[in-house]
């Protein structure tokens, strides 16, 4: 019996369920002892009872949220992420914050460079005397902006093309061929090439990352739409003469909301990671635009000097917190949104 552990566990669960049902039945028939004759006699027709049906009060979003909040780890990371995001955006308006680009000088006009974390500069200063605390939050804003922008483009373009690709049969061939060509170009390569050819900047990075980012989303939406577009309820809608746009918006897309959200949640950390990579190759953002990529790159070049390592630790820590939170929340949400996980 020992190696049957899994199945005995599972059978125990089934037994428990069975017991519970018997229990419930018994309590419903509470105390009423019926004779066999009563049990097997016809029931009276009751119009009210007939209307009752099997409505269970199930709500998709309520169940999804409940399943999500049952995942303690995901809730923890959600709180962390909300806190970090909120702080990132209110930080410049707090009192006593410094300008991320301002070079701090001492009373003799010499730059206060490479000062380790102290009371005046919470995270220290960098090699030319800029305040690292201000730079990190400003950089986080830049990186998050890139991430959100890329995720948004991915969602909008991906959904639009995916829906057309899946729903309009005439376009299927065209989009399939287009996909085959574009999907064969390695994304890293395109990213490098675009950043190399165009002027480095936030918009270039967003453009380069968005150029192929929508492909995966579009293909995914297309496959899902093909699976569900000829289901009976959609046929019924079509027969009733409901316009295509309404079918797509009301019948098809709600089915996909959870997965779209998850893909967007995962697109954000990946965009941030790509920014770090492009900056490392030397075709990323210019130095006067602080970003997590820039800061990590600076920190990396200083890691051989033990006293300056704080310039690597702080940006890496923030970046890891943000990316891991997005990843875990995205996955937990996808699990929670799957109706299979709603029934316990």
């Amino acid at each position, binding site marked *: 019996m020992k*190696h*049957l*552990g*899994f*199945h005995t566990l599972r059978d125990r669960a089934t037994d428990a369920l069975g017991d519970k049902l018997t229990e419930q039945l018994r309590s419903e028939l509470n105390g009423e002892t019926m004779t066999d004759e009563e049990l097997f006699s016809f029931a009276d027709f009751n119009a009210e009872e007939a209307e009752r049906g099997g409505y269970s009060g199930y709500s998709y979003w309520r169940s999804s949220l409940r399943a999500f909040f049952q995942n303690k780890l995901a809730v923890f990371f959600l709180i962390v992420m909300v806190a970090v995001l909120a702080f990132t955006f209110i930080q410049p308006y707090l009192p006593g914050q410094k300008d991320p680009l301002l070079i701090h000088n001492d009373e003799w006009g010499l730059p206060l460079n490479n000062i380790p974390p102290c009371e005046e500069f919470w995270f220290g200063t960098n090699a030319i005397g800029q305040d690292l605390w201000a730079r990190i939050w400003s950089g986080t804003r830049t990186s998050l902006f890139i991430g959100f922008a890329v995720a948004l483009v991915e969602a909008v373009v991906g959904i639009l093309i995916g829906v057309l690709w899946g729903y309009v049969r005439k376009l299927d061939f065209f989009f399939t061929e287009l996909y*085959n*060509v574009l999907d*064969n*170009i*390695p994304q*890293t*390569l395109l990213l*490098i*090439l675009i950043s*190399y*050819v165009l002027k480095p900047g936030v918009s270039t990075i967003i453009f380069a990352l968005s150029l192929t980012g929508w492909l995966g989303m579009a293909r995914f939406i297309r496959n899902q739409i*093909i699976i569900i577009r000829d289901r009976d309820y959609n046929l019924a809608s079509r027969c009733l003469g409901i316009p295509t746009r309404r079918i797509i918006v009301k019948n098809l897309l709600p089915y996909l909301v959870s997965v779209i959200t998850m893909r967007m949640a995962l697109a954000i*950390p*990946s965009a*941030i*990671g*790509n920014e*770090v*990579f492009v900056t*490392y*190759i*030397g*075709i990323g953002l210019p130095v006067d635009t602080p970003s997590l990529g820039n800061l*990590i790159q600076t920190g*990396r070049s200083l*890691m*051989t000097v*033990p006293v300056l*390592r704080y310039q*690597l630790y702080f940006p*890496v820590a923030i*970046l*890891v917190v943000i*990316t*891991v939170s*997005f*990843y*875990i929340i995205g996955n937990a949400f996808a699990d929670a949104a799957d109706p299979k996980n709603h029934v316990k």
Partner: protein
Amino acid sequence: MAKYITKRVLRSLITMFIIITILFALLRMMPIEGYFENFDKMSSTQIQVKLNALGLNDPLPKQLFNFYKQLLHVDLGESNVYRKGVAITEIIADKIPISMKMGLIAMVISLALGLPLGILMARSTRTRFKIGDKLGTVFIVLIEAMPSAVYHILIQFAGSQTFIGKTILGLPMLFDAANPKSYILPLISLSIGNVAYYAMWLRRYMVDEANKDYIRLARAKGVPGGKISRRHVFRNAFVPLVQYIPNSILFTLMGSLYVESLYSIPGMGGLLVTAIKRQDNTLVQALVLIYAVISILGLLFGDILMGIVDPRISFAKKEGSR
């Protein structure tokens, strides 16, 4: 099967042609400084003379035609900045073996660690506390969620700068072909992502497979658990992963852009980064095209191998299927 392969190969060739054309057109937009070693010191006439000599003032279709003609003679042009006047094919011939060697060792390591980890995790899902599964998941989530750029830096940092790495193990920060110790950190960097990847997917496929009816039957018949997971579950679960292996072998040709330049390994990936940093246009062009061709070939081999490994995949187009 033969028909499917021919069709698939032809398709890949067409895709390759289209992609080379697109990339070639895109690469014409590169800043022209990248064709000269000392752009700033040259007069505009000199620049025009050189551009004419390189054929860069010709109309695009003609350039493209010349480029394909060159390709047939296995000629990718000459480097302008990186090693002036040296044929690019010659530069690459030195670099490929280094990238391949590192890549292949890393691949063996990731298979040797990733597969057992996946099996252990899958088997641990059937124990009471699932400790193995939970620990493995933490590792996988960390590696998957963190941008690779960041964990490469952390590995280099932890390995070569901290007390244990630097003082006790004596690991150097940069690669040195003569020093075996200097291989350790780049190899960890190269393989850790794939260890997580193989473990994650093998675990998922094995858990799916273990819930199938024939496995339950085998269990009911009293086949020992170890035998079930080795002979039935693992073998079937491994099939979807097989298609990544020829790809991985092929991709070792290109090396890893990031790891190679981080540890200054003189391989292909590092070469592209150097070429970009030093703005050597012809070298960038040659490398970009090689990369594109390799990834197309990778997809092609993956598809074909998939068909050979799993006979259930049918290549005949079903009637009425779309």
